[in-house]
């Protein structure tokens, strides 16, 4: 399947290809604040939820960026900002060299063809009143791609590509299982032959036994079609399999971004370390021997995030500087391994643990 990328997508071939390895998407100082309003007639803004706060990263064509973090850390909001479902508060978003941050809906339409999303909940992301054929054909109808017969052929083709059969076209979403529905979501995202697919927790809502199926499907499609992915998940185990690079988010910020294997072997940020220690290991002996880092307390409120390093109230290495000074993403260790921490791990600058342990009571 790998020798001949995208032959069955020939119907929609168009536009200059961005060579693999070139920057496809760049986010700079991206912010998304949700205002909290009070009052009946004159709505005053009383506070803001800092859902995504100052996030910058680059995505190269053909790679997969894994995005991990706890629930409520802003992963999904970031995804919706990139696909411009939400308007960003500030910052710039560059896609294929064009600044699309302030594109109008009309101007954005051609961009949307190249930028598709797979959603988290396969039960909510398909319109229950539409037939599968109509759901997959929708992107093509919206963008006026192909005539009726071409669209029909393409729908059947896409169903095959994602491992469903052509006889399913006239069925309704309620007649499918979760895994099958997610495949339909994938087919819809691929309909316009996008360059970038943002998969927002595509397997979180699925049964464990079919997670691997969907992940492998996405992986195979990437090889076949030369796709670029942003793959969101809340545990590192799932992203490890597919990602080239991984970004770890905490409370609206990227705290560490690194090549995938590097991150697993040498986590620099204490939060990453804690996340990694929570990944289940399928070996009871190893599992027992391993030290599991349990983070105390809850994620602080994104309405009034902690000062300095946002992780400091839960960090076992935190010192005074963490409370006052916000760490910036800086190069730690090897190429492309960035982390925002005053006391990075694995680079020899670890502070005496005793002081920190006294604070957290460990």
């Amino acid at each position, binding site marked *: *399947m790998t020798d001949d990328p995208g032959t069955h997508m020939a119907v929609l071939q168009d536009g200059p290809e961005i060579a693999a390895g070139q920057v496809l998407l760049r986010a700079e100082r991206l912010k998304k604040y949700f205002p909290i309003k009070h009052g009946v007639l004159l709505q005053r803004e009383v506070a803001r939820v800092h859902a995504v706060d100052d996030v910058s990263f680059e995505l190269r064509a053909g790679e997969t960026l894994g995005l991990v973090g706890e629930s409520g850390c802003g992963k999904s909001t970031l995804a919706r900002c990139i696909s411009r479902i939400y308007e960003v508060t500030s910052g710039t978003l560059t896609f294929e060299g064009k600044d699309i941050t302030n594109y109008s809906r009309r101007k*954005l339409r051609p961009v949307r063809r190249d930028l*598709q999303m797979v*959603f988290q909940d396969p039960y*909510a992301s398909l319109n*229950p*009143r539409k037939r599968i054929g109509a759901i997959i054909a929708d992107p093509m109808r919206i963008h006026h791609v192909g005539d009726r017969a071409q669209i029909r052929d393409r729908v059947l083709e896409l169903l095959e590509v994602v491992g469903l059969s052509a006889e*399913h076209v006239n*069925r309704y979403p309620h007649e499918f299982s979760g895994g099958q529905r997610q495949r339909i979501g994938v087919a819809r995202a691929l309909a316009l032959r996008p360059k970038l697919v943002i998969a927002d927790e595509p397997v979180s809502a699925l049964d464990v036994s079919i997670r691997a199926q969907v992940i492998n499907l996405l992986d195979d499609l990437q090889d076949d079609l030369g796709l670029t992915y942003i793959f969101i998940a809340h545990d590192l185990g799932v992203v490890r399999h597919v990602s080239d690079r991984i970004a770890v988010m905490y409370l609206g910020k990227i705290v560490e971004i690194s090549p995938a294997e590097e991150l697993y072997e040498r986590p620099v940020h204490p939060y990453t370390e804690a996340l990694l220690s929570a990944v289940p290991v399928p070996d009871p002996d190893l599992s027992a021997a391993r030290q599991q880092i349990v983070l105390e307390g809850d994620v602080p409120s994104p309405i009034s995030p902690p000062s300095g390093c946002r992780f400091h109230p839960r960090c076992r290495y935190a010192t005074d500087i963490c409370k006052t000074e916000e760490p910036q993403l800086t190069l730690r260790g090897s190429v492309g391994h960035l982390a925002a921490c005053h006391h990075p791990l694995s680079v020899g600058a670890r502070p005496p643990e005793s002081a920190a342990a006294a604070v957290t009571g460990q």
Partner: protein
Amino acid sequence: MAAIAEQVSTTELRPAAAGRNPWALAWRRLRSNRIALAALGLFILIVVVCLAAPLYAHDLAHIGNPLSPNLNGTTVANGKVVPIMQEGGGILHLGETPIGPTWSLGHYFLGADGLGRDVASLVLYGGRASLQIGLASAVICCVVATVFALIAGFFGGLTDTILSRIMDIVWSFPVILLAICIATVLLTQPNGVKVGFLTIYATSLWVPTFIIALIYVPYVYRPVRGQVLSVVQKEFVEASIAQGASNFRLIFSEILPNVISTVIVLLPLITATNILTESALSYLSVGVQPPNVSWGTIIADGQDLLYTRPWVSLAPGIMIVLTVLALNVLGDGVRDALDPRAKLRVK
């Protein structure tokens, strides 16, 4: 690749399996609900019987328009020709009563009213007006309310606030008072009131239709708007936004099909309410105006004869009860059919 291409061609030969349409499933559930089906049958029967009014009134043709007074007329009862107004004369004196039910088709089946008109034909013709007003106002009301609810729920913010406050104002209006005002204005204008290119006459059935439709818009608007608000949050709407769909497409292709079941459930219930409201307004003589009759006006006319000829008021009353009952039972059945989980929750 080749394998995939081959698969496509082989599967294309197979006919695509027909999906089980949610509407078809709902219809099947409704069909298995005998009580709801009986209610539907009863309602259709009432509609058909009222539409067939001229067939009954055919035998009355000798007296001309069955809705015009017939104080001097005669009819046949027990093979004898009898005057419609008992105890003599052409003028309704004290002590004079119209003829009672003859129970023979075409000959004052349910007797005559104070003007010597055939009550049975009045009930049938009146039913036409009542049903027409009830159904037309329900449809108008639901369409208007759904459009407003879609706009308010989809755009939210200021649009939603303004529309919802307007609905609150309409909701707070006493329906009878509004009808009295409009009817009074129209009745003082024998040549009708001109609104743009339209001329509205006081006797037009559209006057009560629009009054009733307007009054009940908030009752449909509220639940539908709530439904829209919840559907807008769904991921399939976001998916459609991410694909670049227009607002029009989002509203009518994504959201409307998911809220229309709420409207369909409300439709028979609103129709029933509207028929009741129409009767109330007509009874107070601010609804249907003469020469038209409706169930409400017949009840009002029969009020004076309640002791001597109760059928004049009873017949349209029974028709109203049957129609409203049928529509309410049907509405319950439709709701159970469209949302089977709701029934489980109640049980």
